[in-house]
């Protein structure tokens, strides 16, 4: 076993190995919501789920590992203590990760079988000679020395900081991707090389932390997380250019598009360079608060270096230090730290890379990217309709049926066919079933995030049974579902926690439960005759905060259960023989997260051109405004209540 601990398997170690085999702690990549969406009941198999790779012994990879998550997965694997193993369910090649110790099909049976032989491998191989050092491109580090007070002063060997005379501190930085070991231009206000956005280095300047040292795995896209340029004395029209690519210029600080390094003011030399610091926030009495360290500062640069009467030579003025630091809501200038809430965060959708700038434990700024967004829709120029439908469904594992229905409708419109009314209502019932499953999936994630284990267990269990049940099966499950929803709304302190949390300005591009919870009546199903026949009416809420979204989604679950009961039978959407027809087709379907629109052109029976618009981009745009100024727990609840599917975020 590659992840074993070195040492022979003696008597006691055999006992411990058996205990390790029976006490598996799984860390799920890309996320629990993908596992539930694929119908895997991980908790049922006796596998405990760890919230951080540090407490995990098995890296469970579900489905093909997207390229965007390869680095994060390798960092997660490096953080797991030995003996560690990898369980891959139809994950294909795991490039930066070592070979999987156990593989299986992406079904419950496949999972149970894979777990069984993983337990055997661990029982025999937990301690052994098979252990090998693990390294991956994301983990390579280069030792460099920097001054904790002036992160911009970087040198490759120890010494003293030219600005303040402090001893330089060793710091590991990710080796620059393109050209390893290029000499760091030691400009007076040079830009720090790509240091991993370690959330902590700035905090108390213990020296940069290797990315893997951090708790949550973070995709480190190697921009200096905490160095930001302040042209202190330059006027607004200063030009900024990248030290490595002079042709890249812009008029405000930012990172160079070519290599991600921070842009440097062109002419002004004594602008004091970025300094990172973390800060404390002041809730209530200012009693509890994160802590702040004041990073670099310009020393005597500010007042021309003349000795101020009475101040001793080595004295460092704190006033310059805090002059242009961002002030928190109560006027105190403290340090902010950029903390990535990585792609595998418990409670957040799997694959969503959230980067919060924390002011103490309040959020000062938030931005989100997706590590799993689908790169391009059409793999090759012309694909057959069936292949196109499967590709589109595979792009979004969280709601495949809705996108399958979208593709079928667009193809039928392009081919001029329209399906019989009962198959249309059966297909609509399939989409509604998936809406119920998707909302239950979100509820389970909400239970993980807010600590309601009973909600997580029951919602996930219901979702697994309901996702593939037929109409009669769903009718049998309806009483249990409504009982769960009623108990959820009677949970004490739940509405108090969600009230007024995550309010957003009603953007027009919004659609789906989030928009309807804020009072909008936009629903792609309202002008669809099939739904009209099933007696569908748009469900809207008021308030537009996390509580309204919870009520909206539970209301939609009940509504969809009624629609399926009235539709009677459920059929998966597929397309009859298209033949060699050509034409343009367009369709819009209400996915569980909002209206998705597809335009495609059919030439000679093959799909030649297709473009899709999904609701997630509008949801991600809300994150920044919604999380700003809120306490960390509130911000996470608000972001979780948006139910963002990073898979649909087209790059």
């Amino acid at each position: 076993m590659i992840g074993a601990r070195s040492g022979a398997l003696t008597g006691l170690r055999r006992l411990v190995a058996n205990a390790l085999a029976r006490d598996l702690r799984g860390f799920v990549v890309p996320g629990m919501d993908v596992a539930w969406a694929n119908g895997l009941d991980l908790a049922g198999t006796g596998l405990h789920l760890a919230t951080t790779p540090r407490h995990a012994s098995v890296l469970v990879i579900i489905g093909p590992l997207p390229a965007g998550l390869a680095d994060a997965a390798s960092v997660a694997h490096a953080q797991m203590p030995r003996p560690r193993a990898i369980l891959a369910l139809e994950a294909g090649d795991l490039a930066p990760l070592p070979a999987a110790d156990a593989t299986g099909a992406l079904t419950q049976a496949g999972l149970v079988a894979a777990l069984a032989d993983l337990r055997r491998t661990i029982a025999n191989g937990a301690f052994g000679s098979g252990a090998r050092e693990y390294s991956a491109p994301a983990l390579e580090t280069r030792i460099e020395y920097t001054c904790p007070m002036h992160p911009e002063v970087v040198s490759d060997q120890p010494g003293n900081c030219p600005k303040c005379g402090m001893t330089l501190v060793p710091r590991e930085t990710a080796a620059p991707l393109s050209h390893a070991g290029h000499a760091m231009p030691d400009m007076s206000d040079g830009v720090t090389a790509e240091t991993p956005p370690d959330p902590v280095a700035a905090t108390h300047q213990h020296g940069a932390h290797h990315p893997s040292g951090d708790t949550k795995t973070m995709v480190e896209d190697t921009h200096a997380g905490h160095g930001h340029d302040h042209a202190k004395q330059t006027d607004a029209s200063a030009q900024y250019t990248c030290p490595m690519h002079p042709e890249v210029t812009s008029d405000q600080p930012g990172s160079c598009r070519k290599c991600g390094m921070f842009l440097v003011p062109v002419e002004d030399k004594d602008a004091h360079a970025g300094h990172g610091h973390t800060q404390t926030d002041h809730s209530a009495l200012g009693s509890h608060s994160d802590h702040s360290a004041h990073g670099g500062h310009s020393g005597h640069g500010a007042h021309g270096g003349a000795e101020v009467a009475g101040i001793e030579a080595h004295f460092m003025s704190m006033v310059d230090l805090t002059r242009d630091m961002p002030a928190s809501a109560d006027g105190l200038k403290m340090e902010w730290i950029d903390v990535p809430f990585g792609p595998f965060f418990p409670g957040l959708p799997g694959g969503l890379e959230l980067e919060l700038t924390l002011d103490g434990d309040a959020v000062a700024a938030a931005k989100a990217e997706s590590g799993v967004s689908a790169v391009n829709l059409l793999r090759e120029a012309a694909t057959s309709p069936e292949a196109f439908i499967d590709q589109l469904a595979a792009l979004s594992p969280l709601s495949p049926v809705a996108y399958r229905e979208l593709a079928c409708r667009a193809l039928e419109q392009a081919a001029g066919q329209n399906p019989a009314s009962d198959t249309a209502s059966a297909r609509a019932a399939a989409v509604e079933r998936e809406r119920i499953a998707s909302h239950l999936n979100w509820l389970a994630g909400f239970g993980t995030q807010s600590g309601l284990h009973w909600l997580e267990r029951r919602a996930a269990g219901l979702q697994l049974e309901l996702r593939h049940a037929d109409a009669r099966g769903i009718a049998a499950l309806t009483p249990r579902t409504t009982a769960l929803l009623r108990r959820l709304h009677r949970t004490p302190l739940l509405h108090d926690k969600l009230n007024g949390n995550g309010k957003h300005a009603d953007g027009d591009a919004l659609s789906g439960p989030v928009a309807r919870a804020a009072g909008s009546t936009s629903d792609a199903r309202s002008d669809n005759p099939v739904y009209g026949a099933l007696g569908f009416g748009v469900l809207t809420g008021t308030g537009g905060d996390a509580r309204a979204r919870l009520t909206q989604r539970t209301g939609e679950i009940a509504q969809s259960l009624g629609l399926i009961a009235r539709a009677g039978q459920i059929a998966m959407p597929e397309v009859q023989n298209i033949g060699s027809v050509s034409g343009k087709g367009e369709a819009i379907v209400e996915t569980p997260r909002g209206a998705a629109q597809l335009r495609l052109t059919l030439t000679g029976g093959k799909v030649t051109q297709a473009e899709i618009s999904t609701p997630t981009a509008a949801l991600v745009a809300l994150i920044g405004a919604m999380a700003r100024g809120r306490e960390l727990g509130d911000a996470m609840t608000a972001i979780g209540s948006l139910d963002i599917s990073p898979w649909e975020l087209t790059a």
Partner: protein
Amino acid sequence: MTIQMFFLAFFGGAAVWFGIVVFRTHSMVRSALALLFSQTAVGLMFLAMQAEFLGVLQIMMMATEMSVMAIFMVMFMMDPGGMGAMEMTHQKRLSLWAGGLGVVAALAAIWLANWGPAVAEVPSAAEQTADLGRELLGRSMFIFQSAGLTILTAMVAATMVAIAPQKERPE
């Protein structure tokens, strides 16, 4: 009596040592927690001197007070991690002289004065606590209540001073 002497010397030494560490260490949180353990050592000295209620009170209060102080140190110090080995002092010679003179004067006063015979027996802990209670709510009621009131006014005043004035709070 020798056991008490040993414990007194041991806890006293610990208190003074942690007191020195407070100003020698570069990491601010270590300095705050060094003060915490110095005060705890003082509390243990009270226990060694059979002042049980005061010792337990000191240990309890100081743990929390110094933790709050730790957070303030981290808020207001330039380099709380202590990595840069920054020199945060000024007028070192003057203060060294002042401290030294202070110690010498105090020691001289202690060793030269004649304190009179030491009293051996001490009332039991329960009696002490009961007497203290009666003292606080009897003869020294006024002093005790005024101390309580002072703490209240200090809390209110400090909060007023600390809260950002309305006009300056950037919305």
